[in-house]
């Protein structure tokens, strides 16, 4: 009764959760490309796509991917053999337990009419599968908590996943151990099946079970004489042997029995087997009910991601299907951290402590954005910086064990964020090279606006730039400014500048304009001079900084050895930090 009610409730929550989560694939909007496509269009595009694929030649690709990537998980193996072993143990062991043990009434007993959970090979296999999961869990714990993989983060979901599986497994094994030892279970079975009434006969059977089957009896302890055991064996074979293999085959549970020793008696009297049964069943049902809302939902979404990405082509697929795929991919992420491990700029996290730099951590922010959660300006700017701080090297995408096209996710989310209007200063760095190359793909976006907005935000914090026509006060606007130009030892060389203008003369950017001052603001020699005077605002506020192509002509040609390009680099750092500080105030 309890079981069927609890199971129904868990299944109902699981079912509702599944529908809710899968419908989110069609409801959620990830990035700029998905904007303006209604869910109904996405559902019909998906149905059309599925039908076309199912009856096309691509079905062979799907079968290959299903076998190699979903079942055997070759992509994980290619990345990291230890992690593959871990995952195969947990997923393989758990799936087999689910089919053979949890669903024994539906599956095993139909396939094998002789099935008895206490008979070999089933009893041994149950423990073997359980042991596989335990080995996998041990590797998972080792990997997350002992092996210090740089920048591998573990979040609450990872802990939950490990804990729920661990509780299911450990409660199951301990339950088995206490049941093997349980005297009350033994008595029940004797009363039901043996038909023995004679005290002596009962005693010999009990002795045999204490000796050979691990039962811990309050009345009898070994050693027993051979005659008693022989008699017990005969009764055993008459009534019990048909349904019971030796418990040593259930090696994990039997191990628990041996460890408990005579304490098993106490556990049995305290009703531990029943308590453990409830724990075991409840943990399984909680796991089932919570599955769609947890990281474990990847059991559903990851195979979908692998299959879909195997047959979808960015160029040919309908935008509606790409929008759906990207929403689905957010659920497919298992937070394994492979992308972060391979990330070209992951190391930047050690200096710039923004977790959104790390691809595996970006996913959580993308989920919040897709679900249209209300995020503050500050949160949005932090996500924006993390998503922009990417060299678009595709290493995350190539490495992802579940085939998520991470690179496309970053790109489309990046644009959606930029269009929200908060300045992103990284657009003024060579990271924008890729955005320039992708310009034609940005049909929904205002390409130039983020670039001008970043420049404007910097100038807005340089007061002197606003009073261009007036005579400027020559008292330093910031006494710490010159001293601050010290990141690299070369940067303070501006002080020996004597204003010969060689740097400006050789600058190809200056040379590109008829009236360079109008376009660029201060020219290189003037910026060096502004540094000498300590006029920070003029140095920070000139377009020259962001239009500098770092060709080092100025620095190479300077007769005084001023490291002009290095000074400009440093000014860019300071100017950006200056604005960022002011914006976060």
């Amino acid at each position, binding site marked *: 009764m309890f079981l069927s009610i609890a199971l129904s409730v868990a299944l109902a929550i699981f079912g509702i959760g599944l529908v809710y989560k899968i419908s989110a694939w069609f409801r959620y909007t990830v990035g700029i490309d998905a904007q303006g496509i209604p869910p109904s269009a996405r559902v019909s595009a998906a149905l059309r796509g599925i039908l076309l694929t199912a009856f096309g030649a691509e079905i062979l690709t799907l079968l290959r991917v299903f076998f190699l990537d979903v079942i055997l998980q070759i992509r994980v193996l290619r990345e990291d053999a230890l992690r593959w072993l871990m995952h195969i143990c947990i997923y393989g062991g758990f799936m087999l337990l689910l089919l053979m043990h949890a669903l024994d009434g539906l599956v095993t007993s139909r396939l094998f009419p002789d099935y008895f959970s206490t008979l070999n090979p089933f009893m041994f296999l149950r423990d073997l599968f359980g042991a596989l999961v335990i080995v996998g869990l041990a590797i998972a714990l080792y990997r997350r908590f002992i092996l*210090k993989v*740089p920048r591998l983060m573990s979040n609450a979901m990872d802990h939950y996943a490990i804990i729920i599986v661990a509780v299911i497994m450990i409660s199951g094994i301990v339950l088995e151990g206490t049941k093997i030892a349980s005297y009350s279970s033994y008595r029940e079975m004797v009363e039901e099946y043996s038909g023995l009434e004679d005290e002596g006969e009962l005693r010999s059977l009990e002795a045999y079970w204490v000796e050979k089957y691990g039962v811990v009896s309050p009345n009898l302890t070994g050693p027993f004489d051979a005659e008693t055991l022989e008699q017990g064996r005969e009764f055993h074979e008459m009534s019990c042997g048909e349904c019971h293999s030796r418990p040593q085959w259930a090696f994990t549970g039997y191990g628990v029995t041996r460890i408990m020793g005579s304490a098993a008696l106490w556990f049995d009297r305290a009703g531990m087997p029943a308590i453990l049964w409830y724990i075991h069943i409840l943990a399984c049902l909680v796991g089932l009910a919570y599955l769609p809302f947890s990281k474990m939902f990847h059991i559903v979404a990851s195979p979908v991601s692998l299959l879909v990405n195997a047959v979808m082509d960015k160029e040919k697929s309908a935008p509606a299907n790409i929008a759906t795929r990207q929403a689905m991919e957010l659920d497919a992420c298992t937070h394994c951290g492979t992308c972060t491990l*391979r*990330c*070209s*700029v*992951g*190391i*930047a996290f*050690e*200096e*710039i402590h923004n977790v959104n730099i790390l691809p595996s951590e970006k996913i959580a922010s993308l989920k919040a954005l897709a679900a249209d959660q209300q995020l503050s300006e500050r949160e949005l700017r932090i996500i924006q910086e993390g998503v922009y*701080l990417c*060299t*678009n*090297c*595709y*290493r995350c995408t190539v490495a992802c064990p579940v085939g998520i096209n991470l690179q496309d996710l970053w790109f489309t989310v990046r644009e959606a964020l930029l269009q929200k209007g908060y300045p992103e*200063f*990284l*657009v*003024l*760095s*060579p*990271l*924008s*090279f*890729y*955005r*320039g*190359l992708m*310009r034609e793909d940005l049909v929904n976006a205002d390409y130039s606006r983020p*670039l001008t907005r970043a420049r404007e935000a910097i100038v807005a914090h340089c007061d002197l730039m606003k009073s261009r026509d007036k005579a400027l006060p020559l008292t330093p606007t910031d006494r710490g400014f010159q001293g601050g130009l010290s*990141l*690299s*030892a070369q940067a303070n060389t501006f002080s020996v500048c004597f204003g010969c203008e060689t740097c400006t003369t050789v600058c*190809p*950017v200056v040379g*590109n304009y008829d009236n360079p001052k109008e376009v660029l603001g201060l020219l290189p020699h003037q910026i060096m001079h502004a540094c000498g005077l300590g006029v920070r605002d003029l140095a920070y506020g000139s377009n020259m900084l*962001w*239009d500098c*192509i*770092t*060709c*080092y*002509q100025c*620095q*190479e040609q300077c007769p005084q050895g001023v*490291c002009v*390009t290095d000074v400009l*680099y*440093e000014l*860019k*750092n300071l100017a*950006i930090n200056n604005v960022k500080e002011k914006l976060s105030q």
Partner: protein
Amino acid sequence: MNFALFLGCTIPARLSQYESSSRAVLGKLGVGLYDIEEFNCCGYPLRNLSFKTFVLSSARNLALAQKEDLNVMALCKCCYGSLRKVDHLMKENAPLREEINTTLEREGLRYEGGIEVRHLLSVLYHQVGIESIREKMERAYEGLKIATHYGCHVLRPSQVVQFDDPVAPSIFDQLVEVTGAESVDWATKLECCGAPAWGINDDLSMDLTQKKLKDGRQSGADYLCAACPYCHIQFDTVQGAILSQRGTDHRLPSILYPQLLGLAMDIDGEVLGLEMNQVPIDGIGGFLSNERSAVSNQLSAGSEETDSG
């Protein structure tokens, strides 16, 4: 002659023909290449934002190479410039070195200096040598005029990068001429390709590139030759944008140096990825002589010229 090959971020993602052609050419020349999977971005794109992140990025790469006891060969000139700069800083600036190493030690790494950072072209010139390359020539170009583009970050700042004479470099020209092609003199040979401004100020970027294309054309060059992914993509993909948006007639296709060299070594065009360039370079085959004898005659004549010069 073994190197850790530093590919950087751009080549594997957007210019795989540079990698495949370099591997093929270097393989024929007996240069051993090792891949260090853990290599990260050189830090160049992050230098505008954070100097420390820039240094840390390159220092980690150098530390990884040091752990394997391998010198580094970069294919990208911006990677080369960054790695050289950071190598220099880590040697010169003790407090910075300590700070960076404290961070690196968290993942069991440390860099004290001592790794040589080289560019593909400097390896070909200094380690392999012009004569060894000449021996591997199967065919020679005839009447082909090449405008070499050196790229800023190998030439300057010369004290740090130490690639060649920053004012009158010749390594690249000699490497081009060993194939039988003529390396022309042109006005903006040592100027920026325009790529650093691409995506930040596209008009400026196109102005600079267009000027180079125009100068190259005026010098009579048939092709630009680059040995850097940024420069090449600029001369290739961005040139495509310039041609379509600005309607100019300064069309000058760019060929990657290992593609140019590889063809003369009779390496398969598919391996060299000739088809993958955006502005087509399929006319290049027309400049190749087919007979080996012609090659050796011309090459010996070429070497005499070089000797007397």
